[in-house]
Structures are given as structure tokens and as C-alpha cells.
């Protein structure tokens, strides 16, 4: 079974801090994604990566950056955390080709105080 592991289940940070969310997948998938999930808004794509060192903006990239130095690891960075970035963050991976589904981690619930 594919395993996508997010480093923290819960995280509390203060406004202005630089925050790192880590995600690791064990199935050699080319594509990795970061979403945030808010009540009533569903999953919104922040960034995705289709290869090492490659990244593409999603629908809501403002205030975020990403890093993919190794194929299995995709990091989401909040450069200067703000209260409106309090949310559930979900990482996913999927292989390239065909209609392959995504596999998700269990999420990081991030609170910015």
C-alpha cells in the first residue's frame, strides 16, 4: 500500500513565524501536491510538483512556497505565518500516466495564533 506521511498531525505557531510542513511518500510517485481544506471550501490546491526541483502554482499559492529536493519529499513553507493560514493541510502523491488516483496523508492541522 502507498504510504504518504506528514510530519505533524497538529501544529501551533505564532504570526510572523516561518513554518515548515513536511511530506514523504514511499511509492516513487512523480507527482506531489499540497492542499488546504477549510469548512465549506473543500480542498484547494496550493502547489504541486511533477518532478524533483520542479514546482507549479495551484489555485491559492500566495503566502506559501514549496521545496522538492528529493523525489520522495515535498515541503510546504509558510514564509511569514498569518492567522488566515490556520487550516488543515493535506499532502498527496500520484504517479504520472493515465487516470491514476492521488494518495493522501492524514493531514496537519495548523493553528496560527
Amino acid at each position: 500500500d502507498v504510504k504518504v506521511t506528514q510530519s505533524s498531525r497538529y501544529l501551533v505557531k505564532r504570526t510572523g513565524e516561518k513554518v515548515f510542513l513536511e511530506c514523504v511518500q514511499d511509492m516513487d510517485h512523480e507527482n506531489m501536491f499540497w492542499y488546504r481544506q477549510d469548512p465549506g471550501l473543500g480542498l484547494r490546491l496550493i502547489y504541486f510538483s511533477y518532478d524533483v526541483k520542479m514546482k507549479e502554482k495551484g489555485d491559492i499559492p500566495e503566502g506559501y512556497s514549496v521545496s522538492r529536493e528529493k523525489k520522495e519529499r515535498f515541503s510546504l513553507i509558510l514564509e511569514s505565518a498569518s492567522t488566515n493560514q490556520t487550516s488543515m493541510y493535506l499532502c498527496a502523491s500520484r504517479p504520472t500516466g493515465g487516470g491514476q488516483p492521488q494518495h493522501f496523508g492524514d493531514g496537519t492541522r495548523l493553528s496560527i495564533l
Partner: protein
Amino acid sequence: EDQVTQSPEALRLQEGESSSLNCSYTVSGLRGLFWYRQDPGKGPEFLFTLYSAGEEKEKERLKATLTKKESFLHITAPKPEDSATYLCAVLFPSGGSYIPTFGRGTSLIVHP
């Protein structure tokens, strides 16, 4: 403008009361439609992939069907353990790739 629309937003059923969830989409040349189940505090769990109109997939009490513009997730004789949020996602072209776009989900509660 939403490209993937799910309805209803919320659904309450009695145990054994069958119903259907809807996912409509606006893309030409469908490359794949996915159904996921999400339990509170967990990530979405993959259920089905559908590719072409007329296709059907089944798993226990769930059956997913696909037409040219929408998909249905039929739940037959649901049990309380079927309570969850059900998400639909469709592959949309983005640059040279295809990216899943999600609907907002249907929250299902099944009462014993």
C-alpha cells in the same frame, strides 16, 4: 466558477435508506473522475476511478456510475459506518499535465 459541483452538501439518512450523491463537472474529454471517502481528522481515502460514460464500479454498499456530464455515488442500505464526507475529483488539463480538481464534498450521516 466551480468546475466540479457536488450535491447535496449534506445528507442525513436512516440506516437502510438508500440514496445517491451527485458530482457534475464541466470538462471536455474526461481523463478520469475519482471518488474518495474522508473520515473526520483523516485524509481522503480512494474509492473508485471512472473513465468513460456508462462505466460502473462497485464496492460493498457503494456503486459509482458515470455519464458525460455527471457521476453518481449510489449507497444501498447504508449503515452508520458509512457516515463520512464523500469527495469527487476530476482531472483537468493544466499546462502539459492533468491536475485533479475537487468538489466541495457531501457530508453523509447515517442514523441507526
